[in-house]
């Protein structure tokens, strides 16, 4: 029997398979397809201080083995989440990871306080959303922004905090170190890569927002490279994501340096993807006589 348990920033995850923020709502929609207790954790839809209506449609454009989205953080607001969704999610034996996004550094502080008081397991601090004008990615692309937000959340949270990094930077390791220095307990990456598609008949971008975030299998190699670089630069546990669809992908992500692995876009293709990935991971461990899943983390053996 393989031991799938992972201790992550002091939190005991039953297994390393998590679902990515924004791809799983608050879990309700997928409960008829699978047993949510089987998931190591659920990153909920990005929350903001006030309700947000998001961007105009079209918000989705397919790409070669991937997709762009420009949802723009549509969500009912943090208070509605705490009141209407969190108690429901709490009935499941899975870790609840609250993803939060502020327009200002102060808003991140208020969100952190509300959510940690409400009793989520972990905060995922989104400084990397490419689909909103203010806040979001603006904090995730500079060392100063990442540090300021992380410090503010650190001061206002009583639960562990995980900072979600943007891939839309030249030196992701520098941002990762800034978050570490400012008190992050963990890191998650990658958020989506800024992209664009154009309808050649109308000559207009497919997305009403013109640009959007790329996710899905197409981004896996970029995500692996960045997880590897960040794991080499900091001493923090990592939730790796970006293009993971199968058990083999999850193994690869862990070898690159991830402690936990999230699936996002893969759930759209197959609601059972998290469970098949978990099974694939278990089969891999059994085949290689590995008793603890944690033994995989960071075990890529580089060429000399």
């Amino acid at each position, binding site marked *: 029997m393989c031991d799938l348990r992972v201790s992550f920033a002091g939190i005991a995850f039953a297994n390393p398979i998590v679902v990515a923020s*924004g791809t799983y709502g608050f879990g309700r929609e997928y409960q008829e397809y699978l047993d949510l207790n089987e998931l190591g954790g659920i990153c909920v839809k990005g929350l903001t201080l006030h309700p947000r*209506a998001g961007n105009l449609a079209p918000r989705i454009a397919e790409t070669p*083995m991937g997709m762009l989205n420009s949802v723009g953080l549509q969500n009912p607001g943090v208070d509605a989440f705490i009141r209407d969704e969190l108690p429901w999610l709490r009935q499941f034996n899975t870790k609840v990871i609250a993803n939060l996004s502020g327009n200002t550094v102060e808003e991140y502080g208020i969100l952190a306080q509300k959510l940690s008081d409400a009793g989520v397991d972990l905060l995922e601090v989104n400084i990397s959303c490419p689909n909103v004008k203010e806040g979001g990615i603006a904090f995730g692309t500079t060392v100063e922004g990442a540090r300021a937000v992380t410090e503010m959340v650190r001061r206002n949270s009583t639960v562990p905090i995980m900072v979600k990094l943007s891939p839309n930077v030249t030196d992701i390791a520098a941002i990762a170190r800034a978050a570490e220095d400012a008190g992050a307990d963990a890191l998650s990456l990658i958020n989506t890569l800024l992209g664009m598609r154009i309808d050649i008949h109308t000559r207009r971008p497919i997305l009403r927002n013109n640009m959007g975030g790329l996710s899905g299998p197409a981004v896996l190699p970029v995500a692996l490279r960045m997880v590897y670089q960040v794991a080499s630069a900091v001493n923090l546990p990592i939730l790796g994501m970006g293009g993971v669809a199968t058990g083999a992908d999850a193994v690869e992500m862990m070898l690159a340096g991830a402690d936990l692995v999230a699936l996002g876009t893969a*759930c759209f293709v197959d*609601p059972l993807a998290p469970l098949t990935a978990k099974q694939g991971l278990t089969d891999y461990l059994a085949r290689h006589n590995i008793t603890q899943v944690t033994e995989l983390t960071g075990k890529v053996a580089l060429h000399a």
Partner: protein
Amino acid sequence: MQRLCDIIHAQQLTDHIYAITLEAGELGRLAQPGQFLHVRCGGDVLLRRPISVCDAENETLKIVFEVKGAGTRWLAEKTSGQLDILGPLGTGFSVEGQHILLVGGGIGTPPLLYAARAAKGSTTAILGFGSRSQVILQDEFQTICDNVILTTDDGSAGEPGQVTGPLENELQSGTYDMVLTCGPKPMLRAVANLAAQYNVPCQVSTEERMACGVGACLGCTVTMRNGDNLRACADGPVFDAGEVNWDV
């Protein structure tokens, strides 16, 4: 629900339009008019494709689709074996009403067939196509509906012109208490305006690009008059025409 469904019949209806009948088990019994199936396509196609339920009987489901790009092309070539289906999804038509007017344009006509079958009241269908060679499902509608009016843009079959001409005639008769419509957006908007003018409630089936299809990703929203962005895949695809913001 998710299910691998056997293809029991596949047929080409026009140059670009195909029909597939599936052995769908429970999905067939659950399907309501206006709901859709989220169909996994093979090849290099990543996302599922939403296709409306055209007809349902016991444990079989029929879909009718037009080849647009890689996904529907793959589907058209798939004439046997199984399809990976999520469904039936979404909130469909409410077919309450004594005298129901169904207005379909082109590839928007298929879901109205099942609505007509499910309706208890009398039904009149106005079906619009580009030309004679693009007409689909005419016999099926004629079997189920009390009255079928066909229009083509080029006049090669039925009445020449668009559906709005006959629609206004019918609405003037004053007997209808519900309009159900599906088709291209400009047509939906015109139908919604006419129905509002004659004070007849109208339900429109909308189309948006979808990812999850189950209401989780917020990728498929339709903007309402009150500013809310509702999910076409869960809150819709059918909405009350009066609530939709047609100006965004």
